[in-house]
């Protein structure tokens, strides 16, 4: 470790498995890092199965599930404003030994280690544990003080590695939309995840659902993104057309935190995700503010903003109702233009040969996925892509004179994917040829009608332009293959030599 590092300790025997606490702790430790004139924070996490739970989660966190609870929070540690290395210890004495060693060489860092050791030694003393937690995560006192002194605080950053995926989502899938991140806290739905004592902080599901339904009619330009574990999301809400859950597309907490930071607005209960909002530049309304929350935030009850909050970052104390939520939405988005970007509508036509190009247009540079769709049109396009080798097999069989085999392949495909086959031109053309050979009048008629229907959709200049674009795009896979080989051109002599050796040894 360099002398430009500050080290911050998160021991799950002392601190909770809780998103808001990890995020607040990130800001506390970044402030201490700055105060000591250090450049980055090395995070020391202690997850010792012999001491799996803290004072607040003893009934819930156990040796068996503590690793998972930590894993679920991993993306949150990645938002640390001054992230350095991440050390994950499973034996506390090993972490302590290392910390003592470091503090020995760097007296400026001795105080946090002493504080930690003292608290560990007093772990049966709930007052000592409470004080440690309040000082290091819960209370905003030090954050507010830092703000008063500096006029700013270190803000949370996008979670490590998640920015390109989120950029793709924002500029492509949600192009033309206003993005509103929402967190309807419903911990009572997520039993198994603890927090029974905090059910009173939950949101009002019926009011939220009515609000989201009405927003779909009144504000179709708004795309809501529901934050949090799928286990906390009512299935009814996930079925709403204007609500998306990133987890359904294979994305995770890190992506959600990154997206929240880039949203046009966040509306959510005073809970974990709210901490990401208030330590970010995103405009927000944090609802369900209580006296307890104000105490933690070191604010007078009823105050509308954090000391470090901007004009568009507001705390809300009134109960959540459909009308209140709608009012907040309209106020929060007033004057916000829809997102720019390449407009995100899927070309409904199936053109299997240009699909690799088409999907590549959805992939943002350095993103790990483009697949932000789950509708029938998308399913048909990707299924056609996967079935294309089978169609080619049928075409080859037909060319070789095995009409029956070709027909059998097509029959099997149609039996499984009838909706797709009705709009898959290569399938229909081959089936038409085979049906003509078999003199199957009904099949001929059906194929002709469907092909005529597909052709009708492509009439006119826009249709012609699309057809030309797709035709050109058919060269995309070959271009990609060439690019792949070109990058590895320096390996060609080695590969050639290996090949010659192999041939010679035979």
């Amino acid at each position, binding site marked *: 470790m360099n002398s430009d590092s500050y080290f911050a300790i998160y021991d799950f025997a002392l601190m909770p498995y809780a998103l808001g606490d990890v995020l607040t702790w990130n800001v506390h430790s970044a402030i201490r890092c700055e105060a000591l004139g250090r450049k980055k924070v090395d995070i020391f996490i202690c997850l010792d199965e012999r001491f799996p739970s803290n004072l607040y989660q003893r009934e819930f966190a156990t040796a068996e*599930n503590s*690793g998972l609870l930590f*894993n679920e929070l991993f993306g949150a540690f990645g938002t640390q404003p001054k992230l350095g290395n991440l050390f994950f210890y499973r034996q506390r004495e090993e972490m302590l030994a290392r910390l003592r060693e470091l503090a020995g060489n760097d007296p400026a860092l001795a105080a946090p280690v002493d504080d930690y050791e003292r608290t560990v030694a007093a772990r049966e003393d709930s007052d000592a544990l409470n004080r440690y937690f309040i000082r290091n995560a819960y209370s905003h006192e030090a954050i507010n003080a830092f703000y008063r002194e500096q006029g700013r605080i270190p803000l949370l950053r996008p979670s490590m590695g998640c920015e390109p995926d989120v950029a793709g989502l924002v500029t492509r899938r949600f192009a033309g939309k206003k993005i509103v991140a929402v967190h309807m806290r419903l911990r009572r739905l997520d039993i198994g995840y603890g927090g029974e004592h905090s059910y009173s902080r939950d949101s009002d599901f019926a009011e939220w659902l009515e609000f989201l339904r009405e927003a779909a009619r009144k504000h179709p330009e708004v795309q809501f993104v529901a934050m949090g*574990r799928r286990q906390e999301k009512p299935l009814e809400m996930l079925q709403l057309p204007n609500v998306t859950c990133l987890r359904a597309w294979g994305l995770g907490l890190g992506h959600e935190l990154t997206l929240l930071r880039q949203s046009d607005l966040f509306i959510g209960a005073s809970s974990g995700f709210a901490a990401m909002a208030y330590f970010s530049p995103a405009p927000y309304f944090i609802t369900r503010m209580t006296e307890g929350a104000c105490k933690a935030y070191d604010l007078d009850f009823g105050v509308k903003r954090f000391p470090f909050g901007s004009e568009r970052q507001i705390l809300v104390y009134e109960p959540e109702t459909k009308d209140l939520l709608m009012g907040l939405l309209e106020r929060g988005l007033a004057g916000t233009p829809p997102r720019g970007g390449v407009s995100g509508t899927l070309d409904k036509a199936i053109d299997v040969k240009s699909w690799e190009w088409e999907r590549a247009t959805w992939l943002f540079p350095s993103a*790990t*996925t483009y697949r932000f769709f789950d509708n029938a049109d998308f399913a048909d396009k990707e299924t056609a892509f996967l079935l294309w080798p089978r169609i080619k097999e049928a075409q080859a069989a037909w060319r070789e004179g095995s009409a029956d085999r070709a027909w059998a392949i097509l029959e*099997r495909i149609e039996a499984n994917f009838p909706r797709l086959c009705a709009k898959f031109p290569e399938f229909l053309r081959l089936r038409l040829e085979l049906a003509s050979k078999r003199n199957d009048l009904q099949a001929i008629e059906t194929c002709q009608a469907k092909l005529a229907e597909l052709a009708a959709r492509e009439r006119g200049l826009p249709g012609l332009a699309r057809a030309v674009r797709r035709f050109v795009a058919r060269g995309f896979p070959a271009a*990609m293959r060439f690019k792949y080989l070109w990058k590895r051109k320096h390996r060609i002599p080695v590969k050639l030599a290996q090949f010659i050796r192999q041939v010679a040894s035979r």
Partner: protein
Amino acid sequence: MTAGRPYCAVYDFELMPYALGDVLTWNVQTAIRCEQLGRASTDIFICVDERHPASLYQQGVITPQNCALFMDELFAAFGTHPKPGSILVYRRREELLARLREVAQGDPVNAEVLADYEQVLARRANDDAVIEYFTRSLHSHEQINDFASKHGNIPRLRSCIGCERDVAALIANRFSDKHVVAIHMRLRRLDFGLGGEGTYARDSVFHAWYEFLKEAASCHPDARFVALGRVQEKPLELLKLPNVTSLRLLGLGLGHELSLMLRSDLFIGTSSGFAAMANFSAVPYFITNVTAASCKAYCIAHPAERLPFATERQRLIYEPETRELLMQLLERGLRACAPGPTRMEAAPHLASHRL
């Protein structure tokens, strides 16, 4: 004096790939070294340095902007290590090296690890040196097979840290009257963005799998198939089948999938990442799409029916995947199971009940 110290193993993503199968194989390789050297646990040193984000095999796909996400997606795989110690993630290589040098002082075992690592770093501009290091320390099963022939067994991968209870509950409740068959249909060509364009030839035959699963729903209603892997690799049509579940859509992750494999009645899947979990576990399996290149990596003759450390119910399959073949494998695999699935009681302290 040094015997109580952990063995240090380095996974530097500039030298080794972001790939599930490779991390799992590396876990076993390093557990073997740990055992041979008489150490009780392995401290895992991970280097994910944005200045050197990708290995020879993944340049262009993995960049400074996304390397941390790739690492995050694999993190749970490190949690299956047979002899886990601490996991230390370094974002600056020089800091990892400095720490390793400290640890190696007066500890010949870890001094050797350091020397080996420093040597390959010094030669990392030379592709052949990197390939040799990768093959020796990870890819080749030579050391694993030697260990098995000497000891009659190998260190097996364990359930991912923390996931055991959720998986136990899933099996005891949702799948209580079913045979659980974990499947991995490799379809990397669908998961565009994750790279691997050079390996599309190893992909599964979608139509064969789809027909097989559809038929299995009527022939074997007692079988529940759990499709492993990223949601992005799963065809939407496949996920609609009533007898197929994806744990990711239930809010669970890679760690759960790896843990569930260990409790499955059978695994059927392509020779790819999840197959490594099966290889290094006791779960009965059929690994399909095994090729001459796979055999070379496994250090076995082509076409050997089993890995040297495999049980009678762990088989390698070389024939092309067809509906009929997959159905035969399923029936053969289930015949050997107990007549009725026997499941443990629901476990307390779950992180999720909504399974």
